[in-house]
């Protein structure tokens, strides 16, 4: 049981390290509030940021902190939020995110199924199989998968060498305009 405390200490140490290492203007992720930048329109997010000199633009100071201010509707926290299927079935809550070596999100871990917390399974869902809509709290996160398609996915375990991520098979013609 004591290993929990080790891992808490470990994450605190990491958090402290981030704080000292201040040159990143904004970090995605923190212990409790993971927020993702909403790319609502194709140009909205990408167009604005270079003007504000956030990421390595020539005017930006090479060291020190810079404050970005974004509208509340552009960002939202996903940890603990319910993922729904296209047919509006509740699939489970997001409990963690997996990122790759470049820092891009690859999968959301959801706590799937069960009753009153008994029998839940942690399942990794491909990040590209998720759609986000901050405007509608009921459908804030929708997976292009239904419960039957993900139920048998091997459970996500931190200790496993191979991580299985369930991905939605995309329509052949690519007729989904959101992608």
């Amino acid at each position, binding site marked *: 049981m004591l290993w929990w405390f080790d891992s808490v200490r470990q994450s605190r140490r990491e958090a402290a390290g981030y704080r000292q290492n201040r040159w990143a203007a904004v970090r995605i992720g923190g212990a*409790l509030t993971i927020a993702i930048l909403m790319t609502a329109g194709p140009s909205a997010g990408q167009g604005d940021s270079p003007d504000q000199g956030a990421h390595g633009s020539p005017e930006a100071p090479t060291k020190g902190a810079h404050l970005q201010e974004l509208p509340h509707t552009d960002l939202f926290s996903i940890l603990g939020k319910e993922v729904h299927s296209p047919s509006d079935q509740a699939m489970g809550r997001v409990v963690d995110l997996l990122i790759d070596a470049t820092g891009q999100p690859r999968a959301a871990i959801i706590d*799937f199924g*069960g*009753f009153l*917390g008994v*029998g*839940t399974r942690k399942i990794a869902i491909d990040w590209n199989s998720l759609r986000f809509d901050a405007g509608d709290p009921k459908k804030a996160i929708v997976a292009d998968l239904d419960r039957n398609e993900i*139920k048998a996915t091997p459970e996500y375990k931190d200790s496993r060498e191979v991580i299985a991520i369930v991905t939605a098979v995309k329509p052949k013609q690519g007729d989904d305009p959101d992608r």
Partner: protein
Amino acid sequence: MNLLQVGNERQTAASAARGFPGLDWLNFFIANFQTGFGPFISVYLTSAGWTQTAIGAALSTGTIASMASQVPAGVLVDAVRNKRMAATIAIAVIGVSALAIALWPNFLAISAAEVLHSFASAILGPAVAAITLALVDQRAFGERLGRNARYAAIGNAVAAGVMGAFAYSLGDRAVFLFAATLAIPALAAVANLREAPSAPLRPPPTASPRAPARPRARSWQFLTDRRLIAFAVCAVLFHLANAAMLPIAAAAVTKRAGSEDGLIIAACIVGPQLITALLSPWAGRAAEAWGRRPILLLGFSALPIRGILLAGIADPYLIIVIQLFDGLGAAVFGVLFPLIVADITRDTGNYTTSLGLVGLAIGGGATLSTALAGLVADHLSVGAAFLSLAAVGLIATALVWTLMPETRVIADA
């Protein structure tokens, strides 16, 4: 003593045991509000945006506090003259913990609530057993414990249903607000005990089964009682085999069943409780009539049977049926745990201390069970995990057979 006499005695014992509706309600409401404090807390904290690490740390704090408080709480209840007051305070503290969990889902409040809840629960169980022991005649004790277990099981079943509906329709926080309000009828049930018609049924003071409030000289001699050690060992193995079976079976249901998995798991939880409610009074009566050993063997033998069946059968609906064996084990253990410890420590003033010691053993067994079975399921297979649990259950049954003496004291009229 002939058969007719046994029958007559059983009848009077049974009617004496039935005389305490306050105890029925007390057990019902305690089980009711305790149901929310299970695995559900992690669902609730997840919805509050907690990380898995933080949830694990808060719940481990609760587990450690629970283990650490078993023996001190038992010693405290032995030392306190007014067991009802102890139960009242414990219920109030648990109600406040539930309220704190509902209102302030931050790390400090949740960890504090977990610790308070653990300590209060460690007081409440032994306190209710001690109150029961003080209220009823020695011959009626087994039957009365059976009724306690029956109403606790009904409380668990009802609470699982109601809380499941609340979580679905009103949100996760509603579950803890509901649990907190249930403390009120529980407090009323304890207060009502005072008015229970206990005086005429209570045996004369000379033969009082009530444990003396303070033994003249505190002796830990009872710790070396072979029967207590044997029972503690059997209890560890029982929970080592038992605790992981439901979670692993439920996870298997989630894997195989589609959208109906929640309902099937609900049935896996509620079904055994109904069996426990049906069988507990019988277990209490039978333990008085035939002795503790045969009933204990029966309850323990349900473990290997359930483990082997779960290893071999994958159909989610059949798992509901196999889980009914859980009800037999729970009925027998729930009744015989306080009964056998009472047999061993009656009139020594160490009753609830001993309950706490065995409680500590049970907690250790249960915690190890989920950890070890989880490892086996990860590295080998779910079937191997069930077979390992079945093997432990078989060893537990064998130990009851070889180590555990009969503890029933035939009360001479």
